């Protein structure tokens, strides 16, 4: 087997050329240089095969071989405000930015009363009107030198969200980025690109939601970069509800400065082949970073989480809790890298990853990967893979609870500690509810009320 699949390189190159034509005079800008460089890199790399260690358990051949159409201009009329409502969180008041097939849809969005100097809008708009401030951040954190998907996504930086918080800014309401994929006659691809710049002492909550409006095939190739400056606090949620035929490859790359705090909660419900790369670089002292995640795979889903926490400087704490529930023929992959660089003394890193297999045909490949070069550090990691606890099953049954219901109760309990770590009640409720729906909700009424 080859190391890379390059069958469709020509397709992406010609897509790139069409994009270039649509750009008019912008082709000489630094952004386009970045795109061009990333495209060259992608052309060189090709899509990875399972011979690539980073993709050992995740075969992306179906993605590599599909002829995805690139939607340069979406049909914004194809999406209604009712479609949007379906993916808002009941009871949660947000600044809402809606994107359709990767492009900002202003008429579906509502951003009101942002504090002075705060920006939350379309990346494309920001690049058109005032690109200079973005240059020091965009493409600077998510490396594409050896990552074909990030390279491809960077080559097609077109739109997404640009969030900017000046020093001391405090955004009370969560900023909700809703990425909807619509329907086309053929499979299509979008490249949502987000940039979050949180200035010193600023504070905000950002929710990314990815959802398919129909059960069709498409490919979301997302990169989100976040720069979290000194003493800033960013709470990040990613709720993934792609269609059951969709491919979703996503990198959330965080770069943190001193005494900052970044908390990520990534929840995966949808998608056929899913790869998430949440990565945090802890490049200053005294900061805190949390990467939590929950995934629920059923049917033939493949859900791969490759997390990276890079302790580059001393006195930082990182926490990681990933839990997966796999039923049917679903497969999970978890790889949790923790680097503790020579300089990063007094690091405290904690990683827990647990998977619950509900069926004999479900499986998971999991690998913690600790690379520690400093000597005065505290690193703990624990990985468990298990079935439902037979003793607990029996205990529930002896109290009159039928087997399937007992199973659902225990599954719900397993997943609920990740959900309970989320600070936003409406998101907790949503996730609990969705978990129940995926586990046959009608039998579990009331469990989330007590």
């Amino acid at each position, binding site marked *: 087997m080859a190391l890379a699949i390059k069958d469709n390189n020509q397709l992406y190159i010609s897509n790139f050329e069409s994009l270039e034509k649509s750009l008019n005079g912008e082709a000489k800008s630094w952004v386009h240089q970045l795109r061009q460089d990333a495209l060259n890199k992608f052309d060189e790399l090709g899509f990875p095969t399972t011979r690539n260690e980073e993709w050992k358990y995740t075969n992306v051949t179906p993605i590599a071989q599909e002829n995805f159409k690139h939607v340069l201009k979406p049909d914004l009329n194809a999406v209604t405000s009712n479609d949007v409502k379906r993916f808002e969180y009941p009871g949660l008041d947000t600044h809402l930015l809606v994107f359709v097939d990767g492009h900002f849809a202003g008429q579906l969005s509502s951003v009101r009363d942002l504090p002075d100097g705060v920006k939350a809008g379309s990346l494309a708009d920001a690049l058109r009107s005032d690109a200079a401030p973005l240059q020091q951040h965009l493409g600077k954190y998510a490396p594409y030198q050896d990552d074909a998907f990030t390279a491809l996504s960077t080559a097609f930086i077109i739109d997404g969200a640009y969030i900017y918080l000046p020093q001391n800014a405090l955004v009370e309401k969560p900023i909700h980025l809703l990425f909807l994929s619509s329907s086309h006659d053929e499979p299509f691809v979008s490249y949502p690109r987000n940039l979050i710049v949180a200035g010193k002492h600023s504070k905000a909550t950002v929710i990314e939601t990815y959802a398919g409006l129909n059960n069709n095939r498409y490919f979301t190739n997302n990169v989100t970069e976040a720069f979290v400056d000194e003493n800033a606090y960013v709470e990040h949620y990613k709720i993934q509800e792609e269609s059951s035929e969709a491919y979703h490859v996503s990198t959330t790359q965080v770069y943190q400065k001193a005494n900052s705090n970044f908390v990520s909660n990534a929840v995966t419900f949808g998608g056929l082949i899913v790869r998430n790369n949440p990565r945090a670089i802890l490049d200053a002292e005294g900061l805190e970073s949390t990467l939590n995640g929950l995934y629920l795979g059923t049917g033939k889903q493949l859900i791969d989480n490759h997390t990276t926490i890079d302790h580059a400087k001393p006195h930082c704490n990182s926490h990681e809790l990933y839990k997966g529930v796999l039923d049917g023929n679903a497969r999970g992959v978890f790889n949790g890298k923790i680097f503790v660089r020579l300089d990063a003394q007094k690091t405290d890193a904690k990683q827990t990853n647990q998977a619950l297999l509900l069926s004999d045909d479900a499986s998971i490949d999991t690998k913690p990967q600790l690379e520690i070069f400093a000597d005065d550090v505290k690193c703990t990691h624990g990985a468990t893979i298990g079935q439902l*606890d*037979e*003793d*607990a099953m*029996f*205990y*529930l*049954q*002896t*109290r*009159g*609870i*039928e*087997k399937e*219901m*007992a199973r659902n*109760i*225990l599954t*719900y*309990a*397993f997943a*609920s*500690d990740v959900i309970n770590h989320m600070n936003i009640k409406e998101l907790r409720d949503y996730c609990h509810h969705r978990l129940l729906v995926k586990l046959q909700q009608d039998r579990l009424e*009331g*469990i989330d*009320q*007590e």
Partner: protein
Amino acid sequence: MLEIKNLHVEVENTKILKGIDLSVKPGEVHAIMGPNGSGKSTLAQAISGRDTYDVTNGEIIYLGKDLLDMEPDERAREGVFMAFQYPVEIPGVTNSYFLKTGLNEIRKHQGLEPLDAMDFLKHIKEKAKLLDINTDMLNRSVNEGFSGGEKKRNEILQMAVLEPKLAILDETDSGLDIDALRIVADGVNRLRTKDRAIIVVTHYQRLLNYIVPDHVHIMLEGKLVKSGDKKLAMELEEKGYDQIKEEYSSVKAKLEETV
């Protein structure tokens, strides 16, 4: 009410119960005593339906029905309850949700309306009060972080809420202080009616001062080797198992001779 005949049970191909006969009538309290490892919990688990316990021979008839044909949850809905010797911790599931779900499943089976959250809370708080159980425990995960005694009391709370027809208490008295013992015994006695039956597994005659049994059985090596009334328990407390073991082995030797 409960007819156990010639019950043989194996765990992982090891014979544990080797022919148990036991007949329990409504209104009766039976005590089963016996040394560690003699098979008391195995009997309790087999009655409850634990599938790791293989019934290789014999039958269990409960209210005229073949219990061995039923899943553990069906047995529970028919009124069989076991207080576990080692209650299970279930992180993430609150005690009150656990109890409410069980109770409503049982009510449904009995053709009763399920209790809503309010009614249930009222119901359970009453029972908790009788058993001197702090209602904070209701909002905690099932048995998680409970002390040994709290776990045992929680078992009795479950029994009080579910109101079974046949209750098997597997060493519910172990690890209880004297006040708790009295409270637990009160809880059991309250349940004692002419159409309910209770089987108490215990090591101590002490409990039987509070819950006075109609019959006492001694289990040895997977068999009920001796039965009597409450005096048998007192005798046992005085003399220990040695004499019974001796008697039993001489009987066994004789039996083997005649074969």
